[in-house]
C-alpha cells in the first residue's frame, strides 16, 4: 500500500510570530515552520492504514522553500517512510493556481494507491488546492473525509464525507485523492525512536525543470492574486477577568449582558 501525503510547512500558529513580508506574501523567515495541522491528521490516518495493512509506505510530498526539510522531519518522525520536496526559488510567492499545478505535476511522477491532503492550511485557509490537484491529475476526488476505508483487494476506497446533516458515503477506485479533516483522529506525538530515526530518512528533491513547468508561470511572477493591504484587526477591548465566587461572578456577567442589550 503506498500513500502519498501532501503536506505544507506553515508558520507555527502557536508562536504568534506570523507576519507578511514587504511584498505582501508570507514572511517565512519570521516564525518557526511546522507541518500544517490538518496535514498531521491525514498523515496519522495514512500511518495507521499502512500499519494495519502490514506493509507499504507513506510518502510526504511538499512544495516548499529549501529550508523545508527541517519541517518535514517532524512528519518523518511520526513514521512516514520518506519525503519528496519540490523546491525552487522561482516558486516563491506562488498563488493557489501555481501550487495546484506544481503539486499535480509532481503527483503524476509518482505511483501510489491513495493521495491525502488536509482540507485547508492554517496560513491561507483557502481550501481549494486539493480539489484542483485532483482535477489536474485526473484523480477521483473525495473530500472532507471523517473516515477513510481502503479495500486493497477490490482496489477501491470508501470515505465518509462530512455534510451539513451528517455524512455522504463516497466510493472510488484507486488511485484517488482524499482531503481529510480532524475527524480522522488525533495525530500521534512522534516517539523518541521516531524522532531519532527521522534524521536518516530520505528527502529527495524535485526541481521545476524536472516537471516541465515554466518558471514565469509560477511564483510571484505568475501569481493570479496579490495582497494589496494588510492591517491588524480592530482590537477587542481588554478582557474583563472575573475571579469572584460564583454568585458574584454571575451578577457581573448578567450586568455585562444587560449593558450590551443581549438580555
Amino acid at each position, binding site marked *: 500500500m503506498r500513500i502519498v501525503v501532501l503536506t505544507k510547512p506553515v*508558520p507555527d500558529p502557536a508562536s504568534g510570530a506570523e507576519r507578511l513580508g514587504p511584498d505582501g506574501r508570507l514572511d517565512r523567515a519570521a516564525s518557526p515552520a511546522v507541518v500544517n*495541522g490538518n496535514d498531521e491528521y491525514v498523515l496519522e490516518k495514512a500511518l495507521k492504514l499502512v500499519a494495519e495493512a502490514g506493509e507499504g509506505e507513506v510518502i510526504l510530498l511538499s512544495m516548499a522553500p529549501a529550508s523545508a526539510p527541517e519541517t518535514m522531519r517532524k512528519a518523518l518522525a511520526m513514521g512516514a517512510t520518506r519525503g519528496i520536496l519540490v523546491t525552487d526559488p522561482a516558486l516563491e510567492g506562488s498563488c493557489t493556481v501555481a501550487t495546484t*499545478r506544481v503539486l499535480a505535476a509532481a503527483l503524476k511522477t509518482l505511483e501510489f494507491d491513495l493521495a491525502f491532503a488536509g*482540507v485547508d492550511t492554517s496560513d491561507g*485557509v483557502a481550501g481549494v488546492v486539493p480539489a484542483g490537484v485532483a*482535477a489536474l491529475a485526473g484523480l*477521483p*476526488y473525495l473530500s472532507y473525509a471523517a473516515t477513510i476505508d481502503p479495500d486493497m483487494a477490490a482496489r477501491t476506497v470508501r470515505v465518509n464525507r462530512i455534510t451539513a446533516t451528517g455524512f*455522504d458515503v463516497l466510493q472510488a477506485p484507486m488511485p484517488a485523492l482524499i482531503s481529510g479533516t480532524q475527524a480522522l483522529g488525533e495525530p500521534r506525538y512522534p516517539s523518541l525512536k521516531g524522532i531519532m530515526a527521522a534524521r536518516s530518512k530520505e528527502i529527495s528533491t524535485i526541481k521545476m525543470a524536472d516537471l516541465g513547468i515554466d518558471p514565469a508561470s509560477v511564483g510571484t511572477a505568475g501569481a493570479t492574486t496579490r495582497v494589496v493591504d494588510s492591517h491588524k484587526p480592530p482590537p477587542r477591548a481588554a478582557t474583563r477577568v472575573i475571579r469572584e465566587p460564583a454568585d458574584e461572578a454571575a451578577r457581573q456577567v448578567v450586568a455585562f449582558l444587560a449593558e450590551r442589550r443581549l438580555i
Partner: protein
Amino acid sequence: MAAGIWVHGEVAGDGSLAKLSTEVATLARALAEASGEPVTGVVIGADPAGAAATLADYVPRVLAVAEPETAEHAAGTIVAQRLAALIAEHQPRMVMTGAGPEGRDLAGALSALTGWGVLANATAVRWDDGGPVATHNVFGGKLVTESALTGDHGIVTLRPNAVTAEAAPSKGKLETVAPAGSLDQPAVPIVERLEASGAAASIDDARIIVAGGRGVGGPDGFTLVQELADALGGAVGATRAAVDSGWIPYSQQIGQTGKIVKPALYLALGISGAIQHKVGMQTAESIVAVNRDADAPIADFADVFVVGDLFEVGRALLEQLRARSG
C-alpha cells in the same frame, strides 16, 4: 464580451438553496451596483428549479442547469466542469461562491480547469480599481489582509455569516440552460447517506449561542448548557472534543471542521479556545467565557472571562437570568 459577475447557487441536500448562497448573492448584487457589471446566478443540480427560484429572489437573472449526475455523485467536480463550459461560452469575468465545503471543492476544481485565480475565504469584498478586492482574516485572526486579482478573471469564495442576506427589490428571471461541455473527470458515486442524529436548534443563524467544551465533562453536563441557551433564547454549540466524545451531535459543532458562526453573543463554558475552535467563533460580537483554567487561550480574546467552575457559575447565572425574566 467578458463581463458579468456570476453567483453559483449551492443546492442543499433537500433541493433548496443553501443559506450561504443567499449571502453570496447579496454581496454579488452590491458589487454589481458598484461596478456596473451585470450579475447572473447559476444553479447546477439534479433538480435545480427550487434553488434557482430562490436565487432569483436575490439576483435579476438565474441560469438553471439540470445535471442528473449530481444526484448520486459528489457534486463539486461535476458542477465545476459544467460551470467551466458555461464560462467558456458566456465569458463572465468572475464567479462567486460560498467558502463552505461545497464551494471550496467547486472553486478548487474550477480554478484548475480555467486557470483562474481564487480570492479565498473572504469576509468581505468591495469593488476597487476595476476589480474585486477581498478581505481575509489570516493567521488565526491576527491579521486582516486585502487581496485582488492580477488578471481580469477570478473566483471568489465567501465565508458564511460574513454578509447578511437581503432579497432584491424584484424577482429575477429564470432561464433553463442545457448542460454544456463534457464530464471528463472521474465521477465519485455517493453509495449511502447517513443522517446525524438529534434535532437541535440550528446554530447557523442563532443570535445567541451557548457552547460547551471538554470542561462540560459529559452529556449530562450539556443539560446545563441547554438550559442556559433556553434562558437566553439561543442555540447550543459545542467544540470538537465534546462532539468526538459523543456528548452532542456533530450538527452543533463549531470550529474548523464544524461551523463558523457570528452570533451577537457567544457564551463559552469549559472551552479552552484553541485555534481550531477559535476560528469558528472569534468574530462573535460579544464573547463571555467560563473556565477553571486562568491561562486558557480564550481569555485572550473574550470580552469577559470568568475564572471558575462552569457548573457553579453556570447555575448561578441560570438562577439570576430566570429571576430577571420573572
